[in-house]
């Protein structure tokens, strides 16, 4: 049953990937296919990070309708984008290169997470929900600061900021992709080493401690890995963690196993299917007139309502 389901998912993933890569190529396959392959690599990598970080985040918060975005990562990212446009106006892109922007975004988001964790975890036995609450409130503060900046800047410059409000795979910088890929891959690799401990955590915090889990340390490592993955994915393609709630829950429904190595694999595959499928629609059906964020938000929103309606499972 488990193997069969995973095979089905892998099958669908491979077909979608092939369809995306090889159909409707047009007259210039030598140009189009490598470009699509790059985009594909980015999508697969990010889908895996989102899959991992969402499932792990839901385990440590013991809640199936949260994603790491509740911690305010994306709010930090957008505030930073609004702030540089506020500072430099229409000269933004001459002053700050894409690489520098990426680097600063990652450092800011990761730094934000570190400060949050260290400030709160210095005192032992802080409840994870307290951490979420602080993240949520700071996120709201950053969002209103962003709104303020957007109000002050020139409406034309506002368009620059707006670009960052939606995730996009259309123009990915290949240099950045290389570095991100290495960082995400390493963090995922380290991440696989704690999966068996996270399985025990599903029995509840107390039960996990009595079975020999160092709860505090496990939560800290998980949150650090999540911070790395979310910062890099967000800096690379924009706010996309909303995808997490969708793919994590699809995986719980479809994969008949509680083990993290199975649910995370499932979530990652669902992620690839949705992102690549969505991107295919954006490119060919909507002719780039919409963004993948809107498509996935639409699907995700419908699914979220469905989840709420059958809330006995939450």
């Amino acid at each position: 049953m488990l193997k069969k389901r995973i095979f089905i998912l892998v099958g669908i993933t491979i077909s979608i990937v092939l369809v995306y890569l090889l159909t409707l190529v047009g007259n210039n396959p030598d140009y189009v296919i490598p470009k699509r392959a790059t985009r594909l690599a980015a999508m697969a990598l990010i889908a895996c990070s989102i899959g991992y970080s969402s499932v792990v985040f839901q385990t440590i918060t013991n809640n199936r309708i949260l994603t790491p975005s509740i911690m305010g990562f994306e709010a930090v990212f957008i505030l930073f984008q609004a702030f540089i446009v506020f500072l430099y106006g229409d000269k933004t892109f001459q002053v700050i290169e894409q690489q520098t922007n990426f680097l600063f975004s990652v450092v800011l988001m990761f730094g934000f997470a570190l400060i949050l964790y260290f400030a709160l975890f210095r005192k032992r036995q802080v409840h994870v929900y307290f951490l979420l609450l602080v993240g949520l409130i700071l996120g709201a503060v950053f969002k209103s600061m962003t709104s303020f900046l957007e109000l002050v800047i020139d409406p034309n410059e506002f368009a620059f900021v707006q670009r960052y409000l939606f995730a996009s795979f259309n123009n990915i910088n290949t240099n950045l992709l290389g570095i991100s890929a290495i960082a995400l891959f390493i963090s995922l690799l380290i991440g696989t080493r704690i999966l068996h401990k996270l399985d025990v955590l599903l029995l509840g915090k107390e039960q996990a401690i009595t079975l020999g889990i160092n709860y505090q340390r496990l939560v800290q490592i998980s949150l650090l890995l999540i911070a790395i993955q979310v910062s890099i994915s967000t800096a690379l393609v924009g706010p996309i963690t909303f995808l997490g709630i969708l793919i994590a829950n699809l995986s719980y429904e479809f994969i008949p196993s509680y083990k993290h190595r199975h649910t995370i694999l499932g979530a990652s595959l669902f992620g690839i299917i949705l992102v690549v499928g969505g991107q295919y629609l954006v490119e060919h059906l909507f002719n780039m007139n919409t963004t993948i964020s809107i498509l996935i938000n639409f699907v995700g929103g419908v699914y979220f309502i469905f989840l709420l309606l059958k809330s006995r499972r939450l």
Partner: protein
Amino acid sequence: MITVKDLHKKYGDHPVLNGLNIEFPKGKVISLIGGNGAGKSTLLSVISKLIDQDKGQITLSKEDITNISHKDFAKRLSFLRQSNFTHIRLKVHELVAFGRFPYNRGKKMSKEDKQKVEEAITFMELDNIANSYLDELSGGQRQRAYLAMILAQDTENILLDEPLNNLDMKYSVQIMKTLKKFARKQGKTVILIVHDINIASQYSDYIAALKDGVVQHFGTTDEIIKPRILKDIFDIDFEVILNRGCKFCLYYN
């Protein structure tokens, strides 16, 4: 042997443990009794490293428990809490197998692991529901599944917070007999919170009576089951009846 010295714990401004001292003898069944809010559950939580004490020291075979890693601690002491819940769909045998986590750390189960899991399942008479999902079971069956997990963990010290919750009389008696056998045959120390005073009186070797965050009375069962002491603990009148060499408490008036 577990020794607790001068244990203090506050929740906010509300003190729960007020300089509690006790020495739990090895290889015995020890019941903790006391009214609601006397600090029984908190005591067990601190001993099992779930929460930190504000002050005081706990030693396990003369070793301070703060110096023992969680990993090693789980092989020496197990604790079953009052209410257990998980939102994942888990089969009974999968839950029981978690009891072996301290030994295999999530890697493949060894022969010994498998054997212990089998034994625990058979012992709790769960064989015919071993492949059922936990959420399809009755409260009592689920409680037995969790107890089987604790058995599979196979530790020298077993702490149980109201293990008879949800169990009918047959299983209550069976579990108390089991715990007693563990103490006698395998020298395990069993510390449990019991609300049924007659169960405590029948099956425990020692009784510790808690009140206001300290151990008010501690002694052999015979020493504690006395109207004067019970009244001091629970603030109601007790009548102790001797029947076939056993003491029964009457308190329904």
